């Protein structure tokens, strides 16, 4: 209990000290000549946040770009060698390919599930319960999500995996790597003490993307649901009066109306997919051909201690995120124009 009390005391003191500092600064700038006072006071309000993002994001981001041009010890300038390295080394090239698979498959499926849920659950008696059920995985950490699916994918020697139980009765499926009719679905780092060879084949990346979709679909459902409910009734009714079927109304009226929302959800999922780290790290640790750019970044920089290539992978994520963000901005701007501001 002593630990808890001291932790609380330390936290309160730290926060109180910050508040006192800000109050003192506010008082001091209040003594300034009148023409500087307003601007100085604004800076007192602004400066903690400004300092935090400057030393926590802005300067580090610039420094990471710089580090990506140096060698792995951060000493010699090597130009774009690290970038060439990433795309010519088999291991890192695979991670780029994997990340793009996450983005493509993950985004398409997440948008599809979200739209289906938002459309078909709309007006059902169980609507809110159904949406909560889809959304709940979004409240669980991705590490926990990986663990949960570990028990779905679990294979020999442990006969506890749900997927094996379900597929047992399906004839014609390859026996896989487990033997005894059970398939070793996801090759995991240490689950149940199994250590499969690094070169083991399989659909590992796809299985991890399924976990990602499972975790992301709730957010997409909730956002689409709000958007679909925001379509003006008059539009729907007008379409109905003109004799459109439900399906036609959905595809010709609702979908175009919520187009910018679809772009937003796709952006959100794409960015999350590019940054995918937790699921990979907590299940396979990036082995068995499952590593993504974000996971490789961690392994190369913080496990192998290679500064140059590590920084390059971080910059690569940034470079891939930018166009997606810009596309999203454009779609939003166009939507705002169409809606009249």
């Amino acid at each position, binding site marked *: 209990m002593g630990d808890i009390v001291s932790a609380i005391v330390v936290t309160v003191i730290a926060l109180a000290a910050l508040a006192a500092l800000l109050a003192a600064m506010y008082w001091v700038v209040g003594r300034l000549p009148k023409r500087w006072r307003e601007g100085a006071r604004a800076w007192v309000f602004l400066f903690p946040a400004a300092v935090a993002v400057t030393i926590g994001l802005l300067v*580090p981001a610039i420094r990471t770009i710089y580090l990506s041009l140096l060698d792995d010890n951060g000493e010699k300038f090597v130009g774009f060698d690290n970038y060439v390295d990433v795309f010519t080394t088999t291991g890192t090239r695979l991670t780029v390919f994997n990340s793009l698979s996450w983005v493509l498959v993950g985004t398409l499926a997440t948008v599809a599930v979200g739209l289906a849920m938002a459309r078909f659950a709309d007006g059902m008696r169980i609507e809110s319960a159904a949406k909560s059920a889809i959304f709940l995985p979004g409240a669980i950490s991705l590490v926990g999500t990986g663990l949960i699916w570990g028990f779905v994918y679990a294979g020999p020697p442990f006969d506890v995996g749900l997927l094996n139980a379900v597929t047992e009765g399906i004839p014609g499926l390859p026996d896989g790597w487990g033997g005894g009719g059970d398939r070793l679905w996801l090759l995991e780092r240490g689950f149940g003490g199994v250590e499969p060879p690094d070169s083991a084949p399989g659909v590992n990346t796809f299985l991890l993307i399924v976990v990602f979709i499972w975790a992301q679909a709730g957010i997409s459902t909730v956002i689409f649901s709000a958007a679909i409910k925001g379509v003006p009734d008059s539009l729907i009714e007008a379409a109905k009066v003109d004799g459109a079927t439900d399906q036609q109304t959905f595809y010709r009226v609702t979908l175009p109306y919520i187009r910018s929302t679809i772009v937003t959800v796709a952006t959100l999922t794409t960015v999350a997919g590019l940054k995918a780290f937790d699921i990979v790290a907590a299940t396979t640790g990036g082995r068995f051909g499952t590593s993504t750019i*974000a996971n490789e970044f961690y392994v190369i920089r913080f496990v192998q201690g290679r500064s140059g290539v590590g920084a390059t992978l971080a910059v690569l994520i940034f470079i891939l995120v930018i166009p997606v963000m810009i596309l999203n901005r454009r779609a939003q701007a166009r939507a705002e124009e169409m809606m009249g501001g």
Partner: protein
Amino acid sequence: MTAPKPSLVQGLRARRAKKRHEASLGRSAAATLSSKPGQLLVYLLVFLWTIPTFGIFISSFRPEIDVKTSGWWNWFADPSLTLDNYRSVLSSGPGQDDLWTFFLNSVRITVPSVILSVGLGLMAAYALSWMKFRGRDWIFVGIVGLLMVPLQMALIPMLQLFSGGAHIGSVTIFPDLDLTGEVYGVWLAHTAFGLPLVVFILRNFVAALPRDIFEAARVDGAGHLTIFLRLVVPLSVPAVASVSIFQFMWIWNDYLIALIFAGRENAPIVRQLATLTGTRGQSYHLLTAAGMVSMVVPVAVFFALQRFFVRGLLAGAVKG
């Protein structure tokens, strides 16, 4: 006591009837929207999305031997419950998991980080919407622009900053605070990484507050500090609640920042769960209970405050 005027009663009744009529209309209109196959699809998706979590939930209450030898669905044939898994992961002592300590670490990391990021974010939001100074719009654009910067871009230099300070030549511009592994470093990291989104959402909210109240307060002689504390803070409660819950969930569930900035001593429960997952091997029956312990807070927050969480999410989703 006289009865209310007939006209009023009639009016009320008419309004209620109209509402009922609209409600039924709404339901029938919506019901035609979702067809039978559509409804089946919803049930299927709900089933698929529920079953994995349900499985681990059941497993966490099964005896060790059961978890290791049969799938959780066998529980229905042979229902035996035990709290042993939970007792084991929560107990402390040599060789024990002592998850309770890591659970408290999560609280120690999450609560101050949320207070810091939302508090500083609200101050910045006020300055960016109601105080006059040069370059205001540019600073706002700059902060929001940082939303694009992925976490990974900031990790390496920030860790170097914490472990060695920053120097230009022999001039120290940031002291070596030796924050590596300390909980304060984690607070700073979460605050910095969370602020762009917090400022973005809160500024949009604070800027939309009615101008009249600020002018009235200023006429009454209130300064910025008074206006902020007496007007902006209470009026922003809905937005602050949404953003706080959003931040809370994010920070509690974070793995990467905890992995890099929190030492082994200060590891939050999610990081510890990942460590256990990687090392557990033969005693993986305990992972079920460990997983449930790590989920209990965010899931409880989710169920209790879902509306705020969704609102925060919708506000955050509009971001560029």
